[in-house]
């Protein structure tokens, strides 16, 4: 049997303001029938562009060369995607190849029902009666595991959860039974527990529907879980191709080894360090904790006459001086809300929250302002947390100017240079504007700004979730190093269990606004007591195909058990 997809010597060049830029350079890939090829690489390595070429979705500014052969599911000659007319391309899409997008919420049209959207694909390829299309849509929804498909077929996208939306997108892709599904980061926007379910569904696509999958991802755990073969892309080229077991067991290229080494793992050296720090702290006399929350409640006010939404329901925790508390939880669990309340960005509605001796329940900005000197904040998205009209030096100097330590950015420059050096950025970068730095560099500058006033408490809200694995490893290392040197306490908010394990002294697990488990990393992640924590841990894919296979079975048993 021949390959479903055959890419030979593909080259793609984009026209930009600064002249042509090559995104893909002599890439050759094949996808065998009923197999999953994972394409991994950092952002900018050309993996998404390669995937889009397969569907002929390149923008007008791109020029391509090479051969992309796509098998015809109806038994004809394979079609060469790059030379097809728009008309022929439309016939191929959906029938021979389909796409699963990263953001299911933006890939679905909000004004049509999901049933209509699945039927739309059927209508585009031949005449189907309304009744037959609806019946087929219900059938597809049932196949992708949506409960009550007869009712759900009339739902609008906003009535479904994130995981269900992704299921609908997969149903749309499967509707015409294509030979190849291109999945571009299909689980990146999802929570870990949902991710495990979607990965399971994609496995079904291969095993039960007989579709091949070209999986684009940067998550090595996902690769280990799903892929049969892996292609590693680096700067527009495929540097290594190997079956999944071989790649993880014995990576040939140094780049692959470095990429694998950058992936944070559970139970790493972070725990050893945390244990050391705990020993040191035990020797010191007991002091008043920097942050003490008891029965903390935070409610977002509702619209007129409607009750508000309670994001945090009675949470107790403490952060001692020099201690890193990791908060983990899925989206909507209230973890970011707690971080924002600590910084006085969200008002506290009940219970008590004392931050550096100030009660945050009904606090006045005037009383809290002096305390702000001792609080640093690192935001999730480094792209938006800098004023685009300020240079990096001005941004980092801003806290000093606001608190009267320096009159203007020039006078603070020597301190700014020290800070930039501390986060391993050249001092000359201070004169650049935020958009001229890469994501990782910006996040390091953000760390420098957070530390500008030598704070006692640093709140980090998902500081690495917008970054590539390789960059994330660097930023985390830097964070741990600075924390050791400067000894600040920190609230580290993340959804990634492996990240929190590498950094935190203690870990708190949030579920629907309640803290279900708190303890040292070893307690919570090593031998979790709460079933939710157990499920979180079981859902986390590990970058090792053999171990992941056994974990997957364990995960299935937690599902059937609950």
């Amino acid at each position, binding site marked *: 049997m021949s390959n479903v997809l055959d890419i030979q010597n593909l080259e793609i060049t984009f026209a930009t303001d600064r002249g042509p830029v090559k995104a893909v350079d002599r890439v050759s890939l094949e996808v065998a029938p009923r197999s999953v090829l994972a394409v991994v690489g*950092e952002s900018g390595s050309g993996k998404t562009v390669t995937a889009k070429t397969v569907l002929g979705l390149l923008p007008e500014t791109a*020029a391509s060369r090479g051969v992309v052969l796509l098998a015809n599911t109806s038994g004809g000659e394979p079609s060469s995607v790059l030379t097809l007319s728009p008309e022929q391309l439309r016939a191929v899409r959906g029938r021979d190849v389909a796409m699963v997008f990263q953001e299911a919420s933006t890939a679905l049209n909000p004004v049509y029902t999901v049933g209509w959207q699945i039927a739309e694909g059927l209508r585009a390829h031949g005449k189907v009666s309304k009744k037959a299309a609806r019946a087929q849509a219900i059938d597809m929804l049932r196949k992708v595991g949506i409960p009550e498909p007869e009712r759900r077929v009339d739902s609008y996208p906003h009535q479904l959860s994130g995981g269900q939306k992704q299921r609908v997108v997969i149903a749309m892709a499967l509707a015409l039974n294509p030979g190849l599904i291109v999945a571009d980061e299909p689980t990146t926007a999802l929570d870990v527990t949902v991710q495990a379910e979607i990965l399971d569904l994609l496995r079904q696509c291969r095993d039960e529907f007989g579709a091949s999958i070209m999986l684009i991802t940067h998550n090595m755990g996902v690769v280990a879980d799903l892929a049969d073969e892996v292609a590693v892309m680096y*700067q527009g080229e495929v540097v290594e191709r190997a079956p999944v077991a071989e790649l993880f067991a014995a990576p040939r290229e140094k780049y692959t080894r470095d990429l694998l080494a950058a992936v944070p793992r559970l139970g790493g050296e972070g725990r050893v360090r945390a244990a050391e720090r705990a020993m040191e702290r035990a020797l010191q006399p007991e002091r008043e904790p920097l942050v003490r929350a008891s029965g903390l409640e935070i409610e977002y006010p509702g619209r007129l006459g409607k009750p508000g939404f309670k994001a945090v329901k009675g949470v107790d925790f403490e952060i001692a001086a020099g201690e890193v508390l990791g908060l983990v939880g899925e989206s909507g669990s209230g973890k970011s809300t707690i971080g924002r309340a600590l910084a*006085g960005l969200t008002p506290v509605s009940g219970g008590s929250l004392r931050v550096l001796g100030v009660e945050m329940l009904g606090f006045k900005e005037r009383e809290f302002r002096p305390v702000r000197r001792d609080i640093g904040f690192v935001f999730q998205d480094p792209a938006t947390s800098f004023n*685009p009209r300020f240079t990096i030096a001005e941004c980092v100097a801003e806290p000093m100017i*606001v608190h009267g330590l320096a009159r203007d950015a020039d006078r603070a420059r020597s301190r700014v240079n020290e800070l930039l050096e501390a986060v391993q950025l050249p001092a000359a970068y201070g004169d650049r504007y935020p958009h001229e730095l890469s994501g*990782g560099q910006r996040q390091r500058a953000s760390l420098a700004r957070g530390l500008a006033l030598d704070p006692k408490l640093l709140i980090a809200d998902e500081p690495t979730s917008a970054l590539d694995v390789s960059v994330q490893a660097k930023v985390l290392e830097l964070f741990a190093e600075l924390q050791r040197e400067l000894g600040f306490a920190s609230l580290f908010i993340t959804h990634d269990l492996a990240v929190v394990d590498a950094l935190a002294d203690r870990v708190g697990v949030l579920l629907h606004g309640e803290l279900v488990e708190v303890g040292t990393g070893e307690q919570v992640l090593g031998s979790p007591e709460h079933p939710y924590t157990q499920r979180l841990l079981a859902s986390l894919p590990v970058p090792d195909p053999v171990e992941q296979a056994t974990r997957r079975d364990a995960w299935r048993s937690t599902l059937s058990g609950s």
Partner: protein
Amino acid sequence: MLVAGLLLVIVFVLMAALAPWIAPYNYNAISGPDGDFGSRMAPSAAHPFGTTIAGYDVLSRVIWGSRTAFLVIVIAVAASIFIGSLLGLVSAYVGGAVDRVLVMLADAIYAFPSLLLAIVMSIMISGGQSSLWGGIWSASLSITVVFIPQYFRVVRSEVIRVKAEAFVESARVIGASHRRIMFQHVFRNSTRSLPLVFTLNASEAILTLAGLGFLGFGIEPNSAAEWGYDLNKAVADVTNGVWWTSLWPGIAIVLVVMGLTLTGESLNDLSDPRLRLRRRAKAGSGAVTSTSVIAVQQAAAAAAGAADTAASANREEGAPS
């Protein structure tokens, strides 16, 4: 488009600045060294654009008219930008009741026919008198009132968008005062569509001024030259076969408005990278930009340790924006 627009605008500004030297006569001259110009004289060597019914030289009136138009644009647009964007900034930043009242006021002004409002304003300001500065001020301030809601709206919506950005929150966390956040962080990032509104409004300002003059609320010919007034006086000429008195001021208005509009539209296109035209790339051309953070490459592996660290620093610079 941008070039054509800018060219027209530059010619207009030069004409306004150099009017006393370019124009053959003064705007209120009805006689030269050779005696009176005469009424409704056809174009000739002495009067290339002819003369009006009152005996003014059309060419001189058109050139001097650009000066009046220019002053009105500058005053009207400057005043409305200043007041409108300040109100928009405060309204959006403070929010609540202040915002609601200001939006309601802006909507009320929108509901008014703008020319009627301008007429009322011009009567109030000039008190029925006509002088150069009285006329210019009344025209520009009445235009200002009409334009304030536009700047108010544009700035307000931008501020509302920027206010929710993470960098504003980060300024709040630092403890920056409201004034500092408003002007340093929010306002500096909310002005990107102002140049566009500015150029479009400038052309509207000219049209309003000409409209006021045409309706008889402009500036008398002995205080300043004004295209709208000249057009008004030329109405009767059209039916008498005297085409030159209405044609030239009319063309002046059209060209200036077109120049300003073209400039504004092309500024809009320039600021949006998706609308910018680019030359198509040749297949297989161009170099791969380095995007990786992990500093490894087969070639680099051979290089010495010192060179390797330098290379890694360089490689990191190639950040996608």
